[in-house]
Protein backbone atom coordinates (compact mmCIF):
# COMPACT_ATOMS: atom_id res chain seq x y z
CA UNK A 1 0.00 0.00 0.00
CA UNK A 2 1.31 3.41 -0.87
CA UNK A 3 1.05 6.42 1.34
CA UNK A 4 -1.52 8.12 -0.84
CA UNK A 5 -4.59 5.99 -0.11
CA UNK A 6 -3.96 6.15 3.62
CA UNK A 7 -3.98 9.93 3.45
CA UNK A 8 -7.28 9.81 1.66
CA UNK A 9 -8.68 7.57 4.37
CA UNK A 10 -7.59 9.96 7.09
CA UNK A 11 -8.81 13.09 5.41
CA UNK A 12 -12.54 12.98 6.30
CA UNK A 13 -11.74 13.08 10.03
CA UNK A 14 -12.02 16.86 10.20
CA UNK A 15 -15.26 17.77 8.54
CA UNK A 16 -16.38 21.04 10.08
CA UNK A 17 -16.01 24.07 7.91
CA UNK A 18 -16.02 22.08 4.72
CA UNK A 19 -18.55 23.02 2.09
CA UNK A 20 -21.53 20.76 2.42
CA UNK A 21 -21.67 20.75 6.19
CA UNK A 22 -24.68 23.04 6.20
CA UNK A 23 -26.34 20.93 3.57
CA UNK A 24 -25.78 17.76 5.56
CA UNK A 25 -27.05 19.46 8.70
CA UNK A 26 -30.18 20.54 6.88
CA UNK A 27 -30.81 16.95 5.82
CA UNK A 28 -30.51 15.52 9.30
CA UNK A 29 -34.01 15.11 10.82
CA UNK A 30 -32.64 15.16 14.35
CA UNK A 31 -30.97 18.54 13.77
CA UNK A 32 -34.07 19.94 12.07
CA UNK A 33 -36.57 18.95 14.75
CA UNK A 34 -34.19 19.88 17.56
CA UNK A 35 -33.31 23.26 16.08
CA UNK A 36 -36.96 24.06 15.37
CA UNK A 37 -38.03 23.27 18.93
CA UNK A 38 -35.10 25.14 20.47
CA UNK A 39 -35.91 28.17 18.30
CA UNK A 40 -39.55 28.06 19.38
CA UNK A 41 -38.60 27.90 23.04
CA UNK A 42 -36.03 30.67 22.63
CA UNK A 43 -38.67 32.83 20.92
CA UNK A 44 -41.07 32.06 23.78
CA UNK A 45 -38.48 33.27 26.25
CA UNK A 46 -37.59 36.39 24.26
CA UNK A 47 -41.22 37.29 23.61
CA UNK A 48 -42.33 36.51 27.17
CA UNK A 49 -43.65 40.06 27.85
CA UNK A 50 -45.69 39.87 24.63
CA UNK A 51 -47.09 36.42 25.37
CA UNK A 52 -48.36 37.41 28.75
CA UNK A 53 -49.27 40.82 30.10
CA UNK A 54 -49.13 39.69 33.71
CA UNK A 55 -46.14 40.19 35.99
CA UNK A 56 -44.68 36.69 36.62
CA UNK A 57 -44.12 37.60 40.27
CA UNK A 58 -47.58 39.10 40.86
CA UNK A 59 -49.20 37.48 43.86
CA UNK A 60 -52.98 37.26 43.94
CA UNK A 61 -54.33 35.83 47.19
CA UNK A 62 -57.88 35.46 45.92
CA UNK A 63 -56.82 33.30 42.99
CA UNK A 64 -54.80 30.68 44.77
CA UNK A 65 -54.52 27.12 43.41
CA UNK A 66 -56.81 27.48 40.43
CA UNK A 67 -56.74 24.75 37.85
CA UNK A 68 -56.10 25.48 34.21
CA UNK A 69 -58.71 27.46 32.32
CA UNK A 70 -59.79 29.48 35.34
CA UNK A 71 -61.13 32.90 34.42
CA UNK A 72 -60.55 36.02 36.44
CA UNK A 73 -61.74 39.49 35.79
CA UNK A 74 -59.58 42.50 36.50
CA UNK A 75 -60.17 46.18 35.96
CA UNK A 76 -57.69 48.06 33.85
CA UNK A 77 -56.57 51.66 34.36
CA UNK A 78 -59.71 53.09 32.82
CA UNK A 79 -61.96 50.93 34.96
CA UNK A 80 -63.03 48.55 32.20
CA UNK A 81 -63.48 44.95 33.07
CA UNK A 82 -61.10 42.53 31.39
CA UNK A 83 -61.50 38.78 31.61
CA UNK A 84 -58.27 36.89 31.89
CA UNK A 85 -57.90 33.20 31.51
CA UNK A 86 -55.27 31.39 33.54
CA UNK A 87 -54.24 28.93 30.83
CA UNK A 88 -52.26 26.70 33.15
CA UNK A 89 -53.90 27.68 36.42
CA UNK A 90 -52.28 29.41 39.35
CA UNK A 91 -49.96 28.36 42.16
CA UNK A 92 -50.52 28.50 45.89
CA UNK A 93 -49.68 32.22 45.92
CA UNK A 94 -52.07 32.94 43.07
CA UNK A 95 -49.31 33.56 40.54
CA UNK A 96 -50.16 32.72 36.95
CA UNK A 97 -48.38 29.51 35.98
CA UNK A 98 -48.53 30.19 32.25
CA UNK A 99 -46.76 33.52 32.72
CA UNK A 100 -44.16 31.98 34.98
CA UNK A 101 -43.55 29.10 32.58
CA UNK A 102 -43.07 31.51 29.68
CA UNK A 103 -40.63 33.64 31.66
CA UNK A 104 -38.99 30.47 32.94
CA UNK A 105 -37.87 29.67 29.39
CA UNK A 106 -35.61 32.72 29.61
CA UNK A 107 -33.85 31.60 32.77
CA UNK A 108 -33.40 28.04 31.54
CA UNK A 109 -31.88 29.09 28.23
CA UNK A 110 -29.68 31.77 29.79
CA UNK A 111 -28.36 29.25 32.32
CA UNK A 112 -27.90 26.54 29.68
CA UNK A 113 -26.06 28.74 27.20
CA UNK A 114 -23.92 30.54 29.77
CA UNK A 115 -22.88 27.28 31.40
CA UNK A 116 -22.06 25.75 28.01
CA UNK A 117 -19.91 28.72 26.94
CA UNK A 118 -18.26 29.10 30.33
CA UNK A 119 -17.34 25.44 30.80
CA UNK A 120 -16.23 24.96 27.18
CA UNK A 121 -13.97 28.03 27.25
CA UNK A 122 -12.36 27.14 30.57
CA UNK A 123 -12.15 23.44 29.73
CA UNK A 124 -10.64 24.28 26.35
CA UNK A 125 -7.89 26.44 27.83
CA UNK A 126 -7.03 23.87 30.52
CA UNK A 127 -7.25 20.98 28.07
CA UNK A 128 -5.05 22.65 25.45
CA UNK A 129 -2.26 23.32 27.90
CA UNK A 130 -2.60 20.01 29.74
CA UNK A 131 -2.47 18.08 26.49
CA UNK A 132 0.38 20.07 25.06
CA UNK A 133 2.66 20.60 28.04
CA UNK A 134 3.70 17.24 29.40
CA UNK A 135 4.77 18.53 32.81
CA UNK A 136 1.30 19.97 33.44
CA UNK A 137 -0.62 16.95 32.20
CA UNK A 138 -0.21 14.65 35.21
CA UNK A 139 -1.25 17.18 37.85
CA UNK A 140 -4.16 18.65 35.91
CA UNK A 141 -5.61 15.31 34.90
CA UNK A 142 -5.46 13.95 38.45
CA UNK A 143 -7.39 17.01 39.67
CA UNK A 144 -9.92 16.48 36.86
CA UNK A 145 -10.25 12.79 37.81
CA UNK A 146 -10.95 13.87 41.36
CA UNK A 147 -13.57 16.41 40.25
CA UNK A 148 -15.24 13.83 38.03
CA UNK A 149 -15.42 11.37 40.90
CA UNK A 150 -17.76 13.70 42.77
CA UNK A 151 -21.27 13.24 41.32
CA UNK A 152 -22.28 16.43 39.48
CA UNK A 153 -25.47 17.08 41.43
CA UNK A 154 -23.71 16.74 44.78
CA UNK A 155 -20.85 18.99 43.70
CA UNK A 156 -23.29 21.62 42.43
CA UNK A 157 -25.48 21.44 45.54
CA UNK A 158 -22.45 21.83 47.79
CA UNK A 159 -21.05 24.74 45.79
CA UNK A 160 -24.36 26.62 45.80
CA UNK A 161 -24.94 26.00 49.48
CA UNK A 162 -21.53 27.36 50.35
CA UNK A 163 -21.65 30.51 48.29
CA UNK A 164 -25.32 31.41 48.65
CA UNK A 165 -28.02 31.13 46.05
CA UNK A 166 -28.03 33.51 43.11
CA UNK A 167 -28.17 33.11 39.35
CA UNK A 168 -24.40 33.62 39.11
CA UNK A 169 -23.47 31.03 41.76
CA UNK A 170 -25.86 28.53 40.20
CA UNK A 171 -24.22 29.04 36.80
CA UNK A 172 -20.73 28.57 38.26
CA UNK A 173 -21.80 25.59 40.36
CA UNK A 174 -23.42 23.87 37.37
CA UNK A 175 -20.45 24.65 35.11
CA UNK A 176 -17.68 23.34 37.39
CA UNK A 177 -18.72 19.65 37.20
CA UNK A 178 -18.85 19.95 33.39
CA UNK A 179 -15.32 21.36 33.02
CA UNK A 180 -13.42 18.05 33.55
CA UNK A 181 -15.40 16.42 30.75
CA UNK A 182 -14.40 19.20 28.35
CA UNK A 183 -10.79 19.05 29.51
CA UNK A 184 -10.65 15.30 28.86
CA UNK A 185 -12.11 15.67 25.39
CA UNK A 186 -9.79 18.54 24.40
CA UNK A 187 -6.76 16.80 25.87
CA UNK A 188 -7.48 13.61 23.94
CA UNK A 189 -7.68 15.59 20.70
CA UNK A 190 -4.52 17.55 21.50
CA UNK A 191 -2.59 14.36 22.28
CA UNK A 192 -3.39 12.96 18.85
CA UNK A 193 -2.82 16.23 16.99
CA UNK A 194 0.47 16.87 18.76
CA UNK A 195 2.04 13.96 16.90
CA UNK A 196 0.94 15.20 13.48
CA UNK A 197 3.76 16.15 11.08
CA UNK A 198 2.46 19.67 10.56
CA UNK A 199 2.63 20.40 14.29
CA UNK A 200 6.14 19.00 14.42
CA UNK A 201 7.02 21.17 11.42
CA UNK A 202 5.60 24.26 13.11
CA UNK A 203 7.60 23.57 16.26
CA UNK A 204 10.78 22.91 14.29
CA UNK A 205 10.67 26.34 12.64
CA UNK A 206 10.42 27.92 16.05
CA UNK A 207 6.71 28.76 16.32
CA UNK A 208 5.88 29.84 19.87
CA UNK A 209 3.75 27.37 21.87
CA UNK A 210 0.78 29.73 22.05
CA UNK A 211 0.77 30.15 18.29
CA UNK A 212 1.04 26.39 17.67
CA UNK A 213 -1.94 25.85 19.92
CA UNK A 214 -3.94 28.65 18.32
CA UNK A 215 -3.17 27.98 14.67
CA UNK A 216 -2.81 24.22 14.50
CA UNK A 217 -4.39 22.54 17.50
CA UNK A 218 -7.41 24.71 18.29
CA UNK A 219 -9.18 24.36 14.91
CA UNK A 220 -9.28 20.59 15.37
CA UNK A 221 -11.20 20.92 18.61
CA UNK A 222 -14.02 23.08 17.27
CA UNK A 223 -16.34 20.45 15.82
CA UNK A 224 -16.29 18.11 18.84
CA UNK A 225 -16.62 21.10 21.17
CA UNK A 226 -19.74 22.39 19.41
CA UNK A 227 -21.27 18.98 19.94
CA UNK A 228 -20.13 18.84 23.54
CA UNK A 229 -21.40 22.36 24.25
CA UNK A 230 -24.86 21.37 23.02
CA UNK A 231 -25.01 18.41 25.39
CA UNK A 232 -23.67 20.55 28.26
CA UNK A 233 -26.39 23.11 27.57
CA UNK A 234 -29.03 20.38 27.91
CA UNK A 235 -27.63 18.88 31.07
CA UNK A 236 -27.09 22.35 32.60
CA UNK A 237 -30.77 23.17 32.09
CA UNK A 238 -31.67 19.88 33.77
CA UNK A 239 -29.27 20.42 36.64
CA UNK A 240 -30.45 24.00 37.22
CA UNK A 241 -34.04 22.74 37.38
CA UNK A 242 -33.02 20.02 39.83
CA UNK A 243 -31.23 22.53 42.06
CA UNK A 244 -34.23 24.88 42.04
CA UNK A 245 -36.56 21.95 42.63
CA UNK A 246 -34.56 20.84 45.68
CA UNK A 247 -34.63 24.39 47.01
CA UNK A 248 -30.91 25.05 46.63
CA UNK A 249 -30.96 26.88 43.31
CA UNK A 250 -31.92 30.28 41.98
CA UNK A 251 -33.96 32.21 44.62
CA UNK A 252 -37.58 30.97 44.70
CA UNK A 253 -39.23 34.22 43.60
CA UNK A 254 -37.45 34.06 40.24
CA UNK A 255 -39.69 32.26 37.73
CA UNK A 256 -37.71 29.19 36.72
CA UNK A 257 -39.22 25.86 35.76
CA UNK A 258 -37.53 24.22 38.72
CA UNK A 259 -38.89 26.85 41.10
CA UNK A 260 -42.46 26.53 39.81
CA UNK A 261 -42.25 22.78 40.39
CA UNK A 262 -40.65 23.21 43.82
CA UNK A 263 -43.54 25.49 44.74
CA UNK A 264 -46.05 22.91 43.56
CA UNK A 265 -44.47 19.98 45.39
CA UNK A 266 -46.42 20.15 48.62
CA UNK A 267 -49.80 20.31 46.91
CA UNK A 268 -49.00 17.91 44.09
CA UNK A 269 -51.61 15.36 45.09
CA UNK A 270 -54.41 17.92 44.76
CA UNK A 271 -53.01 20.26 42.11
CA UNK A 272 -50.66 18.35 39.83
CA UNK A 273 -50.69 21.08 37.15
CA UNK A 274 -48.02 23.06 39.02
CA UNK A 275 -45.54 20.33 38.24
CA UNK A 276 -46.87 18.85 35.02
CA UNK A 277 -46.86 22.05 32.90
CA UNK A 278 -43.34 23.29 33.66
CA UNK A 279 -42.19 19.66 33.65
CA UNK A 280 -43.45 19.22 30.11
CA UNK A 281 -41.68 22.38 28.95
CA UNK A 282 -38.47 21.37 30.67
CA UNK A 283 -38.56 17.91 29.13
CA UNK A 284 -39.28 19.24 25.64
CA UNK A 285 -36.47 21.77 25.87
CA UNK A 286 -33.88 19.26 27.02
CA UNK A 287 -35.13 16.73 24.49
CA UNK A 288 -34.82 19.28 21.69
CA UNK A 289 -31.29 20.21 22.73
CA UNK A 290 -30.24 16.57 23.01
CA UNK A 291 -31.70 15.79 19.59
CA UNK A 292 -29.80 18.75 18.17
CA UNK A 293 -26.66 17.45 19.85
CA UNK A 294 -27.14 13.93 18.51
CA UNK A 295 -27.67 15.27 15.01
CA UNK A 296 -24.69 17.62 15.22
CA UNK A 297 -22.53 14.77 16.44
CA UNK A 298 -23.53 12.53 13.58
CA UNK A 299 -22.83 15.21 10.98
CA UNK A 300 -19.89 17.17 12.42
CA UNK A 301 -18.00 14.51 14.28
CA UNK A 302 -18.50 11.04 12.85
CA UNK A 303 -15.65 9.60 14.92
CA UNK A 304 -17.42 10.48 18.13
CA UNK A 305 -20.74 9.03 17.04
CA UNK A 306 -19.12 5.64 16.73
CA UNK A 307 -18.09 5.71 20.36
CA UNK A 308 -21.62 5.80 21.73
Amino acid at each position, binding site marked *: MSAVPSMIVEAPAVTAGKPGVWLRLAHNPSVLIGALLVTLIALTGIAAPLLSSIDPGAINPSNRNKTSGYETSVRDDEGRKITRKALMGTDSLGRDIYTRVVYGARVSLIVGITVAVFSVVIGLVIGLFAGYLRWLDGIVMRIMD*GLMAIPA*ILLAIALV*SLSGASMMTVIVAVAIPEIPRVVRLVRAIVLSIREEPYVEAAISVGTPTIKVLWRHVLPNTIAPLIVQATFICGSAI*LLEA*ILSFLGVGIPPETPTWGNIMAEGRSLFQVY*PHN*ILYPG*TFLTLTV*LAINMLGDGLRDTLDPRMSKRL
Partner: protein
Amino acid sequence: MWNYIGRRILATLPVLLIVAVLVFLMLRLTPGDPAAVIAGDAATAQDVAEIRGKLGLDRPVVTQFFIWIGRGLQGDFGESFFYKKTVASLIADRIEPTLALATLTIILATLIAVPLGTLAAYRQGSWIDRIVMGISVIGFSVPVFVIGYVLIYVFALHLGWFPVQGYQRMADGFGGFLHRLILPSITLAVVYVALLARMTRTSVIEVLNEDYVRTARAKGLPNLKVLVFHALRNAAVPIVTVIGIGIAVLIGGVVVTESVYNIPGLGRLTVDAVLARDYPTVQAVILLFSFAYVLINLAIDLMYTVLDPRIRY
Protein backbone atom coordinates in the same frame (compact mmCIF):
# COMPACT_ATOMS: atom_id res chain seq x y z
CA MET B 1 -2.35 -10.17 36.82
CA TRP B 2 -1.47 -9.48 40.46
CA ASN B 3 0.92 -6.87 39.24
CA TYR B 4 -1.91 -5.17 37.37
CA ILE B 5 -4.29 -5.38 40.32
CA GLY B 6 -1.64 -3.81 42.54
CA ARG B 7 -0.97 -1.01 40.08
CA ARG B 8 -4.66 -0.34 39.55
CA ILE B 9 -5.28 -0.05 43.28
CA LEU B 10 -2.29 2.25 43.67
CA ALA B 11 -3.56 4.42 40.83
CA THR B 12 -6.88 4.87 42.64
CA LEU B 13 -5.27 6.26 45.79
CA PRO B 14 -4.34 9.68 44.32
CA VAL B 15 -7.89 10.08 42.98
CA LEU B 16 -9.32 9.35 46.41
CA LEU B 17 -6.84 11.75 47.98
CA ILE B 18 -7.78 14.51 45.53
CA VAL B 19 -11.48 13.93 46.13
CA ALA B 20 -10.83 14.25 49.86
CA VAL B 21 -8.81 17.45 49.35
CA LEU B 22 -11.55 18.94 47.14
CA VAL B 23 -14.31 18.11 49.59
CA PHE B 24 -12.19 19.50 52.42
CA LEU B 25 -11.35 22.68 50.54
CA MET B 26 -15.00 23.33 49.63
CA LEU B 27 -15.65 24.35 53.20
CA ARG B 28 -12.32 26.08 53.73
CA LEU B 29 -12.53 28.19 50.59
CA THR B 30 -15.79 29.85 51.56
CA PRO B 31 -15.39 33.49 52.33
CA GLY B 32 -15.26 34.17 56.03
CA ASP B 33 -14.38 32.14 59.06
CA PRO B 34 -15.27 28.45 58.62
CA ALA B 35 -15.82 28.13 62.35
CA ALA B 36 -18.39 30.91 62.21
CA VAL B 37 -19.97 29.29 59.14
CA ILE B 38 -20.18 25.95 60.91
CA ALA B 39 -21.45 27.47 64.13
CA GLY B 40 -24.33 29.12 62.29
CA ASP B 41 -26.00 32.48 62.67
CA ALA B 42 -27.06 32.14 66.29
CA ALA B 43 -23.63 31.27 67.67
CA THR B 44 -21.84 33.29 70.31
CA ALA B 45 -18.16 34.22 70.09
CA GLN B 46 -17.45 31.52 72.63
CA ASP B 47 -19.14 28.86 70.48
CA VAL B 48 -17.06 29.92 67.51
CA ALA B 49 -13.84 29.75 69.52
CA GLU B 50 -14.79 26.34 70.82
CA ILE B 51 -15.47 25.00 67.34
CA ARG B 52 -12.23 26.51 66.10
CA GLY B 53 -10.29 24.67 68.77
CA LYS B 54 -12.21 21.43 68.24
CA LEU B 55 -11.58 21.38 64.50
CA GLY B 56 -7.99 22.53 64.90
CA LEU B 57 -8.65 25.61 62.79
CA ASP B 58 -5.87 27.47 64.54
CA ARG B 59 -3.35 25.11 62.95
CA PRO B 60 -1.96 25.20 59.39
CA VAL B 61 -4.39 24.10 56.65
CA VAL B 62 -2.35 21.03 55.72
CA THR B 63 -2.38 19.80 59.31
CA GLN B 64 -6.11 20.47 59.46
CA PHE B 65 -6.66 18.34 56.40
CA PHE B 66 -4.81 15.40 57.85
CA ILE B 67 -6.67 15.70 61.14
CA TRP B 68 -9.99 15.70 59.27
CA ILE B 69 -9.20 12.83 56.92
CA GLY B 70 -7.45 10.85 59.68
CA ARG B 71 -10.56 11.01 61.84
CA GLY B 72 -12.75 10.38 58.79
CA LEU B 73 -10.92 7.18 57.94
CA GLN B 74 -11.73 5.97 61.43
CA GLY B 75 -15.37 6.74 60.79
CA ASP B 76 -15.38 9.91 62.86
CA PHE B 77 -16.80 12.83 60.89
CA GLY B 78 -17.62 14.87 63.94
CA GLU B 79 -21.05 15.84 65.09
CA SER B 80 -23.93 17.06 63.00
CA PHE B 81 -24.92 20.56 64.02
CA PHE B 82 -28.48 20.12 62.93
CA TYR B 83 -29.34 16.60 64.05
CA LYS B 84 -27.23 16.72 67.24
CA LYS B 85 -25.90 13.23 66.56
CA THR B 86 -22.58 11.99 65.30
CA VAL B 87 -22.43 12.13 61.52
CA ALA B 88 -21.39 8.48 61.48
CA SER B 89 -24.54 7.30 63.29
CA LEU B 90 -26.65 9.57 61.07
CA ILE B 91 -25.20 7.93 57.97
CA ALA B 92 -25.64 4.46 59.44
CA ASP B 93 -29.35 5.23 59.98
CA ARG B 94 -29.86 6.45 56.45
CA ILE B 95 -27.83 4.00 54.42
CA GLU B 96 -30.37 1.16 54.13
CA PRO B 97 -32.98 2.96 51.98
CA THR B 98 -30.32 4.32 49.63
CA LEU B 99 -28.62 0.96 49.16
CA ALA B 100 -31.96 -0.76 48.64
CA LEU B 101 -33.10 1.85 46.11
CA ALA B 102 -29.81 1.77 44.21
CA THR B 103 -29.64 -2.03 44.11
CA LEU B 104 -33.20 -2.48 42.91
CA THR B 105 -32.67 0.24 40.29
CA ILE B 106 -29.55 -1.39 38.89
CA ILE B 107 -31.26 -4.79 38.73
CA LEU B 108 -34.35 -3.33 37.09
CA ALA B 109 -32.38 -1.22 34.61
CA THR B 110 -30.15 -4.11 33.58
CA LEU B 111 -33.14 -6.43 33.12
CA ILE B 112 -34.85 -3.89 30.86
CA ALA B 113 -31.94 -2.27 29.06
CA VAL B 114 -29.78 -5.24 28.09
CA PRO B 115 -32.53 -7.14 26.21
CA LEU B 116 -33.73 -3.89 24.61
CA GLY B 117 -30.25 -2.92 23.49
CA THR B 118 -29.52 -6.42 22.19
CA LEU B 119 -32.79 -6.48 20.26
CA ALA B 120 -32.04 -3.07 18.77
CA ALA B 121 -28.60 -4.24 17.72
CA TYR B 122 -29.96 -7.46 16.25
CA ARG B 123 -32.54 -5.57 14.23
CA GLN B 124 -30.27 -2.64 13.50
CA GLY B 125 -31.99 -0.02 11.36
CA SER B 126 -35.46 -1.46 11.86
CA TRP B 127 -38.38 0.25 13.59
CA ILE B 128 -37.56 -1.62 16.83
CA ASP B 129 -34.08 -0.12 16.74
CA ARG B 130 -35.48 3.35 16.11
CA ILE B 131 -37.99 3.04 18.94
CA VAL B 132 -35.32 1.86 21.38
CA MET B 133 -32.99 4.69 20.38
CA GLY B 134 -35.85 7.16 20.57
CA ILE B 135 -36.77 5.99 24.07
CA SER B 136 -33.13 6.33 25.00
CA VAL B 137 -32.94 9.98 23.88
CA ILE B 138 -36.17 10.72 25.76
CA GLY B 139 -34.83 8.92 28.83
CA PHE B 140 -31.82 11.23 28.87
CA SER B 141 -34.02 14.29 28.62
CA VAL B 142 -36.85 13.76 31.11
CA PRO B 143 -35.85 15.07 34.53
CA VAL B 144 -35.95 12.45 37.28
CA PHE B 145 -38.46 14.38 39.35
CA VAL B 146 -40.84 14.84 36.43
CA ILE B 147 -40.81 11.07 35.84
CA GLY B 148 -41.35 10.59 39.56
CA TYR B 149 -44.38 12.85 39.72
CA VAL B 150 -45.91 11.49 36.54
CA LEU B 151 -45.57 7.95 37.92
CA ILE B 152 -47.08 9.01 41.25
CA TYR B 153 -49.91 10.74 39.41
CA VAL B 154 -50.75 7.72 37.28
CA PHE B 155 -49.94 4.69 39.42
CA ALA B 156 -50.47 6.01 42.94
CA LEU B 157 -53.12 8.72 42.67
CA HIS B 158 -55.22 7.44 39.77
CA LEU B 159 -54.78 3.69 39.76
CA GLY B 160 -53.93 3.36 43.43
CA TRP B 161 -51.54 0.48 42.82
CA PHE B 162 -48.75 1.89 44.92
CA PRO B 163 -48.48 4.13 47.96
CA VAL B 164 -47.76 7.76 47.06
CA GLN B 165 -44.65 8.26 49.13
CA GLY B 166 -42.73 6.80 52.01
CA TYR B 167 -40.43 3.98 52.86
CA GLN B 168 -40.65 0.83 54.94
CA ARG B 169 -37.59 -0.75 56.44
CA MET B 170 -36.76 -4.25 55.30
CA ALA B 171 -36.96 -5.46 58.91
CA ASP B 172 -40.65 -4.42 59.05
CA GLY B 173 -41.70 -6.81 56.31
CA PHE B 174 -40.19 -7.54 52.93
CA GLY B 175 -43.46 -7.25 50.99
CA GLY B 176 -44.20 -3.70 52.10
CA PHE B 177 -40.55 -2.79 51.67
CA LEU B 178 -40.56 -3.92 48.06
CA HIS B 179 -44.00 -2.48 47.31
CA ARG B 180 -42.92 1.00 48.36
CA LEU B 181 -39.64 0.76 46.53
CA ILE B 182 -40.99 -0.16 43.10
CA LEU B 183 -42.10 3.30 41.89
CA PRO B 184 -38.92 5.05 43.08
CA SER B 185 -36.77 2.39 41.41
CA ILE B 186 -38.62 2.68 38.12
CA THR B 187 -38.23 6.46 38.32
CA LEU B 188 -34.53 6.19 38.89
CA ALA B 189 -34.07 3.42 36.34
CA VAL B 190 -35.20 5.52 33.35
CA VAL B 191 -31.92 7.39 32.81
CA TYR B 192 -29.98 4.26 33.53
CA VAL B 193 -31.98 2.28 30.98
CA ALA B 194 -31.32 5.01 28.40
CA LEU B 195 -27.59 4.91 29.05
CA LEU B 196 -27.34 1.14 29.23
CA ALA B 197 -29.53 0.32 26.23
CA ARG B 198 -27.44 2.61 24.04
CA MET B 199 -24.18 1.08 25.16
CA THR B 200 -25.51 -2.47 24.85
CA ARG B 201 -26.66 -1.74 21.33
CA THR B 202 -23.29 -0.27 20.30
CA SER B 203 -21.22 -3.09 21.74
CA VAL B 204 -23.49 -5.88 20.48
CA ILE B 205 -23.41 -4.38 16.97
CA GLU B 206 -19.64 -4.38 17.16
CA VAL B 207 -19.51 -8.03 18.24
CA LEU B 208 -22.07 -9.11 15.63
CA ASN B 209 -19.56 -8.05 12.96
CA GLU B 210 -16.89 -10.38 14.35
CA ASP B 211 -15.73 -13.46 12.51
CA TYR B 212 -16.70 -15.88 15.25
CA VAL B 213 -20.31 -14.72 15.11
CA ARG B 214 -20.34 -15.42 11.39
CA THR B 215 -18.83 -18.86 12.10
CA ALA B 216 -21.46 -19.56 14.73
CA ARG B 217 -24.20 -18.64 12.28
CA ALA B 218 -22.57 -20.59 9.49
CA LYS B 219 -22.55 -23.74 11.52
CA GLY B 220 -26.30 -23.34 11.96
CA LEU B 221 -26.71 -22.16 15.54
CA PRO B 222 -30.11 -20.63 16.23
CA ASN B 223 -30.09 -16.83 16.31
CA LEU B 224 -31.00 -16.62 19.99
CA LYS B 225 -28.04 -18.80 20.92
CA VAL B 226 -25.70 -16.68 18.83
CA LEU B 227 -27.04 -13.52 20.43
CA VAL B 228 -26.83 -14.70 24.02
CA PHE B 229 -23.79 -16.93 24.05
CA HIS B 230 -21.63 -15.28 21.45
CA ALA B 231 -22.64 -11.67 21.10
CA LEU B 232 -23.86 -10.67 24.53
CA ARG B 233 -21.18 -12.57 26.37
CA ASN B 234 -18.45 -10.81 24.45
CA ALA B 235 -20.16 -7.44 24.71
CA ALA B 236 -20.37 -7.79 28.48
CA VAL B 237 -17.23 -5.83 29.35
CA PRO B 238 -18.30 -2.46 27.91
CA ILE B 239 -21.82 -3.00 29.27
CA VAL B 240 -20.55 -3.62 32.79
CA THR B 241 -18.25 -0.60 32.44
CA VAL B 242 -21.24 1.59 31.68
CA ILE B 243 -23.12 0.18 34.66
CA GLY B 244 -20.17 1.37 36.74
CA ILE B 245 -19.92 4.80 35.13
CA GLY B 246 -23.68 5.17 35.41
CA ILE B 247 -23.39 5.04 39.17
CA ALA B 248 -22.53 8.76 39.10
CA VAL B 249 -25.87 9.39 37.36
CA LEU B 250 -27.53 7.03 39.82
CA ILE B 251 -26.20 8.90 42.86
CA GLY B 252 -27.46 12.19 41.46
CA GLY B 253 -30.81 10.57 40.80
CA VAL B 254 -30.95 9.11 44.30
CA VAL B 255 -30.76 12.61 45.77
CA VAL B 256 -33.75 13.74 43.70
CA THR B 257 -35.79 10.53 43.89
CA GLU B 258 -35.53 10.34 47.65
CA SER B 259 -36.81 13.90 47.87
CA VAL B 260 -39.74 13.17 45.55
CA TYR B 261 -40.77 9.95 47.31
CA ASN B 262 -39.90 11.14 50.80
CA ILE B 263 -37.46 8.30 51.41
CA PRO B 264 -35.25 8.83 54.46
CA GLY B 265 -31.97 7.88 52.76
CA LEU B 266 -28.59 9.47 52.23
CA GLY B 267 -29.83 11.55 49.30
CA ARG B 268 -32.52 13.22 51.39
CA LEU B 269 -29.95 13.63 54.14
CA THR B 270 -27.68 15.51 51.73
CA VAL B 271 -30.41 17.94 50.70
CA ASP B 272 -31.64 18.43 54.27
CA ALA B 273 -28.09 18.95 55.51
CA VAL B 274 -27.38 21.49 52.77
CA LEU B 275 -30.59 23.38 53.54
CA ALA B 276 -29.72 23.34 57.25
CA ARG B 277 -26.11 24.39 56.49
CA ASP B 278 -24.93 21.31 58.34
CA TYR B 279 -21.45 21.26 56.84
CA PRO B 280 -19.86 18.28 58.62
CA THR B 281 -22.72 16.11 57.35
CA VAL B 282 -22.56 17.55 53.82
CA GLN B 283 -18.83 16.89 53.63
CA ALA B 284 -19.13 13.36 54.98
CA VAL B 285 -21.97 12.36 52.66
CA ILE B 286 -20.30 13.79 49.55
CA LEU B 287 -17.05 12.07 50.48
CA LEU B 288 -18.89 8.80 51.05
CA PHE B 289 -20.77 8.95 47.74
CA SER B 290 -17.64 9.87 45.77
CA PHE B 291 -15.53 7.17 47.41
CA ALA B 292 -18.27 4.62 46.75
CA TYR B 293 -18.32 5.65 43.08
CA VAL B 294 -14.54 5.40 42.68
CA LEU B 295 -14.27 2.11 44.58
CA ILE B 296 -17.16 0.44 42.72
CA ASN B 297 -15.49 1.33 39.44
CA LEU B 298 -12.20 0.00 40.75
CA ALA B 299 -13.93 -3.25 41.70
CA ILE B 300 -15.48 -3.49 38.22
CA ASP B 301 -12.10 -2.92 36.58
CA LEU B 302 -10.56 -5.63 38.71
CA MET B 303 -13.42 -7.99 37.94
CA TYR B 304 -12.46 -7.97 34.26
CA THR B 305 -9.20 -9.70 34.95
CA VAL B 306 -11.24 -12.55 36.35
CA LEU B 307 -14.22 -12.41 33.97
CA ASP B 308 -12.43 -11.93 30.70
CA PRO B 309 -9.27 -13.99 30.36
CA ARG B 310 -8.51 -12.28 27.04
CA ILE B 311 -7.64 -9.07 28.84
CA ARG B 312 -3.90 -9.05 29.51
CA TYR B 313 -2.06 -6.27 31.20
